[in-house]
């Protein structure tokens, strides 16, 4: 193999598994260390700069970082990255004074359609540059689905108000209760650029299932029902509730039903339990609230008697997988199952809908109903001054993805408004690499990992929880637990940096490494090298760090897979050929200097 080019920041970026997996590339180990140091405000600001909604995300994030976390490869459970983010938000001081202000006006005007996380991120990234921004949302307050769909027992209004407020306070002109029914009308107002962050607002229904029309009064589309609950248009539901669907919306529907008068609430889903789209923790939370999940049941009929919905029948199926893993649901041949109910919530998916965008605007769509976009860097549509992001761009995803889209779209909008082509010469991500050596054998971080296990966040008493629609279920970690949970982080941003010119091939690093990462071997192809290391490197998602030729003709090969970033290699190296260097990386943003990274 060729020597690894560590000058390319993408190499070390990939080593920080959590940060790499985070769509907005939040510097996770950095904020976790700050939490351990009780520097909650700094930890909050590091988050805020990357993901704009630390308090919201610390409660609701889909957390793609956690399955990626290195700790999950060396022991059973990853670091509690998401809930530590909440710790930063819970224990920070008043941060309002630290927030950047709107910059002096630059004479350019932007329209933002939709007030969800995508639009708010664009607004935040552009405000310091002096853009005049007008945000439009059909709802009464900002936040988009974070407000209308995510129930407040998972995400209290106060948290949302605070974090949406930080953005709107940067001089954004918000037009709430304003549904935009024509893109042309906005274009006509001569905005320099328009950002569409209108989400994927249409909930899927079951129009062709027998009895759908007859039972209409008691059959609700989950998405609409949740927002009616959020804005208190809906105040109760029947005692027996069936929730159809296996995603996170279904989980929010069933848990909300339990708090709205539903006593016998069931989730009934087509697929096997294991294939459900909902995150494992969402399923656990529903089951914990006494909600059974009945899988392998396909809706057959809404049973209506005397004009009133009395229950549903389902075909029982079995999942069969072919060699490629494609699934087919095959009837078991048993009698259809009947479940009585008073109300049904249909939570089987959502899709994009742009009835308000005229063909004549030149904004074109794919056959899936999503806009045709340059690529997932520029977010520019077929009409050059219209940009998309969040769920409106590629269909429903999650908050952190919407934020990441917002950062990229903001860069594009800024370039576009300055007359540059957002497709070329986009700004680079920013990074620094700094030695963490404090003394001969001393590092600036707690290098030796602790053995403590992951702990679950404590919950409020179940009976109390089910009595209230707004009482937050999760209590959050206290500072003591937070410290231990933070110390579980392996500091993957403390990079092992190798200087081949000083290595005397004494093997000390190989001998000390607890997880057998380092081998000195004759060079070969990647496949060959992977097989010949001290422990064969079978996890191909993880890179090999390869040096140039050493005096004996061998090369140093480090398998990044299960490195603990313990620094022992660097401590045992007599010539400091290994050094532990902190890699701080942030994705490119329209305002790169929003805040200086906490030291």
């Amino acid at each position, binding site marked *: 193999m060729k020597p690894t080019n560590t000058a390319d920041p993408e190499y070390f970026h990939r080593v920080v598994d959590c940060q790499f997996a985070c769509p907005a590339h939040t510097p996770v180990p950095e904020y976790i260390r700050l939490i351990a140091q009780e520097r909650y405000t700094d930890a909050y600001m590091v988050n805020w700069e990357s993901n704009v909604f630390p308090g919201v995300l610390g409660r609701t994030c889909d957390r793609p970082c956690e399955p990626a976390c290195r700790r999950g490869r*060396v022991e059973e459970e990853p670091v509690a990255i998401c809930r530590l983010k909440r710790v930063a938000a819970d224990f920070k001081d008043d941060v309002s004074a630290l927030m950047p202000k709107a910059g002096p006006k630059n004479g350019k005007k932007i329209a933002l359609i939709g007030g969800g996380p995508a639009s708010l991120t664009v607004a935040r990234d552009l405000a310091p540059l002096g853009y005049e921004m007008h945000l439009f949302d059909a709802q009464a307050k900002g936040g988009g689905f974070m407000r209308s769909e995510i129930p407040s027992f998972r995400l209290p209004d106060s948290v949302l108000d605070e974090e949406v407020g930080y953005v709107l306070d940067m001089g954004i002109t918000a037009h709430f209760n304003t549904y935009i029914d024509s893109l042309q009308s906005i274009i006509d107002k001569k905005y320099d650029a328009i950002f569409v962050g209108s989400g994927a607002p249409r909930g899927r229904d079951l129009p062709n299932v027998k009895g759908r029309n007859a039972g209409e009064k008691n059959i609700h589309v989950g998405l609409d029902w949740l927002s009616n609950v959020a804005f208190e248009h809906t105040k109760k539901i029947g005692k027996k509730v069936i929730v159809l669907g296996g995603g996170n919306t279904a989980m929010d529907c069933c848990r909300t039903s339990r708090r709205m008068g539903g006593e016998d609430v069931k989730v009934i889903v087509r697929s096997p339990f294991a294939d459900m789209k909902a995150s494992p923790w969402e399923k656990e939370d529903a089951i914990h609230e006494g909600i059974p999940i009945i899988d392998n049941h396909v809706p057959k009929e809404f049973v209506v008697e005397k004009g009133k919905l009395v229950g549903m029948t389902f075909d029982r199926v079995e999942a069969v997988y072919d060699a490629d893993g494609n699934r087919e649901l095959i009837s078991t041949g048993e009698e259809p199952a009947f479940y009585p109910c008073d109300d049904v919530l249909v939570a089987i998916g959502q899709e994009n809908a742009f009835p308000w965008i005229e063909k004549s605007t030149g904004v074109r769509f794919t056959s899936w109903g999503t806009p045709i976009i340059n690529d997932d860097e520029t977010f520019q549509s077929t009409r050059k001054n219209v940009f998309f992001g969040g769920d409106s761009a590629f269909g429903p995803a999650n908050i952190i993805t919407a934020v990441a889209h917002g950062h990229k779209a903001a860069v594009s909008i800024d370039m576009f408004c300055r007359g540059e082509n957002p497709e070329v010469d986009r700004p680079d991500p920013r990074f620094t690499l700094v030695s963490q050596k404090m003394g*001969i054998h001393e590092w600036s971080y707690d290098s030796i990992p602790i053995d403590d296990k992951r702990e679950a966040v404590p919950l409020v008493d179940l009976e109390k929880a089910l009595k209230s629609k707004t009482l937050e279920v999760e209590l959050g970690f206290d500072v003591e637990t937070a410290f231990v949970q933070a110390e579980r982080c392996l500091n993957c941003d403390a990079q092992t940096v190798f200087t081949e010119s000083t290595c005397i091939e*004494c093997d000390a690093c190989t001998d000390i490494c607890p997880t057998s990462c380092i081998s000195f071997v004759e060079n070969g192809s990647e496949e060959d090298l992977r097989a010949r290391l001290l422990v064969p490197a079978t996890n191909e998602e993880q890179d090999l760090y390869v040096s140039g030729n050493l005096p004996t003709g061998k090369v140093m090969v480090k398998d990044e897979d299960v490195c603990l970033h313990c620094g022992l290699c660097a401590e045992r190296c007599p010539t400091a050929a290994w050094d532990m260097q902190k890699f701080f990386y942030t994705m490119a943003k329209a305002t790169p200097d929003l805040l200086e990274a906490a030291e």
Partner: protein
Amino acid sequence: MSYIKPKFRHPRLPTNNLGYTIADYDGAISTLCAGCGHDSISASIRNACFKSSLHPHRIAKISGIGCSSKMPTYFLSRSHGFNSVHGRMPSVATGASLANRDLTYVGVSGDGDTASIGMGQFIHLMRRNVNMTYIVANNGCYGLTKGQDSATADLGSISKYGDVNGFDGIDLASLAILQGASFVARSFSGDKEQLEPLIRAAMAHNGFAFIDVVSPCVTFNNHNGSTKSYAETRDHLDAMPVDFVPMRDEIRTQYAEGTSQSVTLHDGSVIHLRKAVSGLATNDRQSALNTIKSNEDKARILTGLLFLDPDTQNLSTSLELATRPLNELGKDELCPGSKVLKSINEGLR
């Protein structure tokens, strides 16, 4: 400085025939200087025991005094150990091997511990052919006491303080051959590919096995002018690669081309010499001595298996000791009673 080694290990560590991983052979974290050759030897001993599937609790580690003699702390935490007095490891090892002939004995010593203060004892291990592996971590100086020249320092080698050594160094390998050791080898701490199989062979050997390992002292003897630095040793090395194949694997093993010589040990395991320096016959003491000498004259350090007599008789056998360890003999066997005493006394009348 970290005094703790994390507990986490690679999740896919291979296991040996006993189901142990290499981690089961680990010791405490080393307190030697970073980069000390001795740490590499510790790792080689650990790896050798793992690969040979020895039960850690059936191994005894014994040592004298010196940086090198501290090594047993840094490997095989689950084995027996005795850190004795400077130069006195041989008498402890002799006693232990007589008391319990079933354990595998690994003695670890330094060039000071062996060639200076311990010479008088060392010689007798060979004379008696005590069944053990004796490793000298040879750095040409007294590391622990700040790098004074030792008795193995080469003539003309310059110490860290600038003094030129005016004496010929003792060549411990030649001495061992001359003194009748039944297994003699030399190696380099930085050459695990050779050192590991040598240690495995030495442990399988049924008698006194001696390995002199050049092991640079990074702190006091790794400078320009030292003849035992990493750079100097690598420059002058003439390594004869060795493979060790335990008896159970022997039948299935394919030999690399160019295998020039094979020696079968008493337990059926085999040592393969992949390349021997011309003129060396490892079953002939005279040839071994000559080859070492002629290489030394050319300033070459010959490493590998130098001499082996696989059919030797160890001390327990020549003393006709009980075939079982003392701690397994019952009261009746140890004290056969007045009847037997009487009959012995009768026999002496």
